[in-house]
């Protein structure tokens, strides 16, 4: 491999890591819900795309600046997250993990179909911020829109960590995830914490959806299934319930994916990611930052 190839490889790795911030946000969403409820919410990625679509409704009515579109996407993500909890979790007995798994699959299909139904399945353009800015560092270019997505993703993660570790709400959330019964005895409402978790993850999902739209430049309902799979992969590689793990794993998967695409082409790229995940599950089932090996 000569120098030019090397530069291209590093460039695609860097682009991938920047885009990986969106995977990290999705992974955090899966991991938070799992940490608090020990349940998996398969409709999460679809809800994130749905929130980004909802923010486009605003653009259809008035000519809003892209920053406002991002905010609306986050807000509608929060609303959708709460709805997902009410429809798919609230009235289903928690002792039965299969039932909530199935209900979130139903919600995944439902959200996808609502999108297809309202847009006739046509991909829509999404506004990007700083798309005309390009940072030059030696032979490398860093795209402004990807940089923005990365910075925004990091900002969200910092805010989330501050919320979890510096506020009473976060204390309650962590208490429920560690010992639901003891938390309830201390007067914490489990339902309240669950609703809150779904709202917060929904807001994160809304931001992630908007970031994906901005980074790719368009939105399509076809995105939701691959993103669900990627989000799950990030969750598992990072270790279930581990937020720092999800962040690192998200950036790692984003970078590796782009690097493999550069070397092996787009059709084989995901094959290697799947094999990597499988290897992780066999040799290190607890993930990168697992608290203890072999926990469910």
């Amino acid at each position, binding site marked *: 491999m000569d120098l030019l190839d090397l530069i291209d490889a590093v460039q695609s790795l860097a682009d991938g890591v920047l885009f990986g911030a969106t995977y990290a946000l999705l992974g955090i969403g899966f991991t938070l819900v*799992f940490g608090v409820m020990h349940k*998996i919410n398969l409709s999460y990625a679809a809800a994130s795309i749905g929130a980004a679509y909802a923010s486009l409704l605003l653009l259809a009515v008035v000519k809003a600046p892209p920053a406002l579109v991002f905010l609306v996407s986050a807000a509608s993500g929060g609303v959708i997250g709460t709805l997902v909890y009410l*429809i*798919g979790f609230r*009235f*289903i*007995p928690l002792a*039965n*993990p*299969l*039932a*909530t*798994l*199935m*209900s979130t*699959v*139903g*919600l*995944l*299909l*439902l*959200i*996808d*179909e*609502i999108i*297809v*139904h309202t847009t006739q399945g046509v991909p829509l353009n999404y506004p990007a911020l700083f798309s005309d800015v390009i940072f030059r560092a030696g032979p490398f270019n860093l795209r402004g829109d990807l940089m923005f997505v990365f910075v925004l993703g990091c900002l969200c993660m910092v805010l989330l960590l501050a919320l979890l570790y510096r506020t009473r709400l976060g204390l309650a959330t962590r208490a429920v995830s560690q010992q639901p019964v003891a938390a309830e005895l201390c007067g914490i409402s489990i339902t309240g914490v669950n609703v809150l978790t779904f709202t917060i993850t929904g807001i994160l999902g809304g931001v992630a959806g908007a970031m994906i739209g901005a980074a790719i430049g368009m939105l399509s309902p076809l995105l939701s*299934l691959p993103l*669900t*799979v990627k989000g*799950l*992969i990030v*969750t*598992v590689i990072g270790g*279930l319930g581990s937020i720092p793990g999800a962040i690192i794993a998200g950036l790692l998967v984003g970078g590796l994916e782009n690097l493999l695409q550069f070397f092996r082409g787009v*059709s*084989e790229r*995901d*094959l290697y990611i*799947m*094999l990597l*995940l*499988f290897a992780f*599950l*066999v040799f290190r*089932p607890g993930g990168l930052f697992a608290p203890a090996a072999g926990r*469910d």
Partner: protein
Amino acid sequence: MDFYLGLAQIIGVHTLLGLSAYCVLLTGQISLAQAGFFAIGAYVAGMLTVLGGWPIIPALAVAALVAGGAACAVGFPALRVTGLMLVVATTAFGEAVRLFFFNFNYQLERGGFKLGPHGGEGFRQIRYFPEHGWSTLDVMLFIWLFVVLVMAALWWMDRSRAGAVLRAVGEDELAAQSSGINVTAVKVSAMTVGGLIAGLGGGLFAHYTTHIEHVQFGVVLATFAVAYPILGGLSNVFGTLLAVIFIQGFLIEGLRFMGDWRNLLFGALIVLAMNVRPRGLIDAGTVAALKRIFNWERAGA
């Protein structure tokens, strides 16, 4: 009439797919790899009849064995993890199989045409049934023969010691282990049996559709495979059959008159069904009620 025969074929093949997930679910594990085993069965059976010129029954048998072997090989590492981790591990395996066939190119010259799997374009011209003059009815009966055989075998297994062992592992792994059951062996056997059934279903699927491609075997099909037994309930094999008829017959074909709205209703009805009947359409309570009615009638007569 052909429409209903075709629908019966679809229901038959999907019942096999659902039953393959049912075996694994009995041990309390959720496997999303069933679409992968289904794909392996479909490609192997198709290649044997088209490229190898084999008759259908040995081709199906080999397809089932290969898929079962793959399931056994995957089962050992994958079943070290449980719950959500297994869902993700098996999803990864299923997707890896699909992506393998997406990149799989193996074509041979047969009768002036290049036949065989051709990457993203898929595998065309699996024409065993039309070439041998089977009518739609014949194909439908052939598929249902296997469905009845598999259902009878599973029904019998449920009543035997093996079924009790499977359910014991599914209900409480720790209790099963302390009563001397080798939990890993039980799970891997259930996975292998599931793989065999999925491979058989895949082989039949390849032959009645005559054209298979990788997109048919994605996460959606895998989700359907586990959706049937979960929606139908795990108390016996008829739950799966009922759920397949409900989804394929009613939700997909029966609601066709609603056009675009059908797809919207599809997800909503699954959510509703899980809210109203979290243990499946036919749960233990339903079975008990049916038994009561049946016994009462017999006592009255």
